């Protein structure tokens, strides 16, 4: 399984007021750069603590992030608090528009403040802006996709080689590889061409599939994902027996034979019981009438 890249610049806290109960902990901060569909870049911040027992998320930790100019107010990307799962997402604010367009690569400095459960930690990542394109290959007898990675250099986009990426069909919780290999590497033209080998894969109601190319945690360009929709799946034929009458259905969908039998018996017996009640009432009336004569 892919390991998460965590930089350990945490301080070990020891010998504080109540050191006896203080477990040894390492506070960890990670920052990742993401671009999806070449649209809006964002940073994902995660705060965790490593204790003897294992790795745990640290929530409600304030983190401030700066772009290019560490700790400078004009370079502030954002100040966030991680959620209970220890994660936060921050985009590049419009205020940094001029700084953004100046360079093709940027460095982000993240600082997590201390709290009772967390030690101050800092982190930095340098990213070069890149684009990931995904297209189908026109013509030919087979279905193929081509992914291109381009790096920004000044005003132009230059192909980037030897970038590892994977191409998969989006499924619940993951991506099903479209080709034979798990990962591919871009060639000198920054391209990867992959044949779509999945036959008869269920798609949506029109038989369409969403294919995604992913660059995972590249050292230079961060994480990029780009997706396109292709009509290479089969139409989704899902016949559910959910509404049918059965023994495990909700009370309103009980089997007919059961309903008839049960109500039949109940009505038969209780009609007789009600009849008997009327007989008792009649005996009562007879008794009362006799009394009055």
């Amino acid at each position, binding site marked *: *399984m*892919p*390991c*998460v890249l965590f930089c350990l610049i945490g301080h070990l806290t020891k010998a504080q007021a109540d050191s006896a109960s203080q477990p040894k902990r390492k506070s960890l901060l*990670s920052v990742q750069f*993401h*671009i*999806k*569909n*070449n*649209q*809006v*870049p*964002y940073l*994902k911040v995660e705060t*965790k603590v490593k204790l003897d027992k*294992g*790795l745990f*998320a640290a929530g409600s930790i304030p983190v401030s992030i700066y772009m290019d100019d560490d700790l400078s107010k004009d370079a502030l990307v954002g100040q966030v608090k991680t*959620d209970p*799962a220890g*994660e936060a*997402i921050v*985009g*590049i*604010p*419009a205020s*940094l*528009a001029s700084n*953004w*367009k100046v360079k093709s690569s940027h460095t982000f400095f993240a600082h997590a403040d201390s709290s009772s459960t967390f030690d101050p930690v800092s982190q930095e990542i340098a990213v070069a802006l890149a*684009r990931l394109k995904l297209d189908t290959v026109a013509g030919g007898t087979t279905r193929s996709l081509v992914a291109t990675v381009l790096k920004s250099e000044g005003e132009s986009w230059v192909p980037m080689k030897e970038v590892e990426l994977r191409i998969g069909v989006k*499924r*619940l*919780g*993951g*991506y*099903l*590889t479209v080709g034979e290999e798990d990962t591919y590497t871009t060639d000198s033209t920054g391209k990867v061409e992959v044949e779509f080998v*999945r036959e008869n*894969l*269920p798609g*949506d109601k029109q038989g369409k599939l*969403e294919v*995604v190319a992913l660059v995972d945690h590249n050292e230079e360009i961060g*994480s990029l*994902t780009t*997706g*396109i*929709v292709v009509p290479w799946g089969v139409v*989704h034929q*899902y016949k*559910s027996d*959910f509404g049918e009458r*059965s*023994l*495990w*259905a*909700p*009370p309103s969908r009980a089997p007919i034979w059961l309903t008839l039998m049960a109500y039949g018996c109940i009505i038969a017996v209780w009609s007789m019981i009600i009849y008997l009640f009327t007989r008792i009432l009649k005996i009562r009336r007879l008794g009362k009438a006799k009394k009055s004569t």
Partner: protein
Amino acid sequence: MEDNITSSRDFITGGLTGAACGSCSCGKNQSSSEVEPKPSGEKVKLLSVNGEVIEIDKAFLKPVPDLPKPSNEEERRGIEGKKFVMVIDLARCKNVGACRDSCNHAHHLHPDHNWIKIYQMQDAEDTAPYWQPSTCMHCEEPPCVKVCPVDATFKRQDGIVLIDSDRCIGCRFCMAACPYSTRVFNWEDPGLPEEIASQHYSCESSVPQKKGTVGKCDFCPDMARKGELPHCVSACPNGVFFFGDMNEDSVTNGAETFRFSELIRDKAGYRLMEDLGTKPSVYYLPPVNRNFPFESGLENVKPQESQENHH
């Protein structure tokens, strides 16, 4: 893989990215069955890759967006178009127990309870022993649902069988009916901290558990609504659990994704107690070419002492 919790799975459903697509014309990335977070109305200006300014609703700037809570009727109906299935690869299991521990933790269970039980199985005298983690089978013809007198346990259209702890009367007939011994009963108060115990009970998260009612593995439908995998699947360091949607013909353990039909065919998948006719939704891959010898799991076996509050 030493970490229990990893974050490398950037599930791109929900979160900022969905919103980014909501406000520009790159095409819908979320499948129609996933719930969208409620826009807060508060917008923030962000930069695109090209330096253009784009407006995005703040509600989408969360790693885990606040999705609207489904009503009880929606929880009983389930997620349309999905048919959840799990595949457990017995060749990879070495009784680490991370699945069981993460499940217990995520659902705030009573310390005596395990919704996932890891059995030491040996089919015959001369066959080899193996570790078998067992969850609720979420059967297609669930005997537990058949016998519930008050519709407290029910089967949804996505195949998941859930328990409504606000309706359960605690008769425990479902526990007698289940042949997989997967249901547990809250004999006493589970001892939850106040802020969890006072929450409104959701059938999909099965939290908070209540005294006098039944509990069991729920396939984490609250995670599925967000496009995430159940806790056991994510927690297992050896990739034993695969989870997915049969209608997509795909299962994944987070790192590897396979076509469900191919996986079952190539590795001869089977179901437990097939001859009872319950039609489980959990498939097992036989312990062939194991990653670990059986004995390596024995060190984790220890007798469990009850942690009840004695009165």
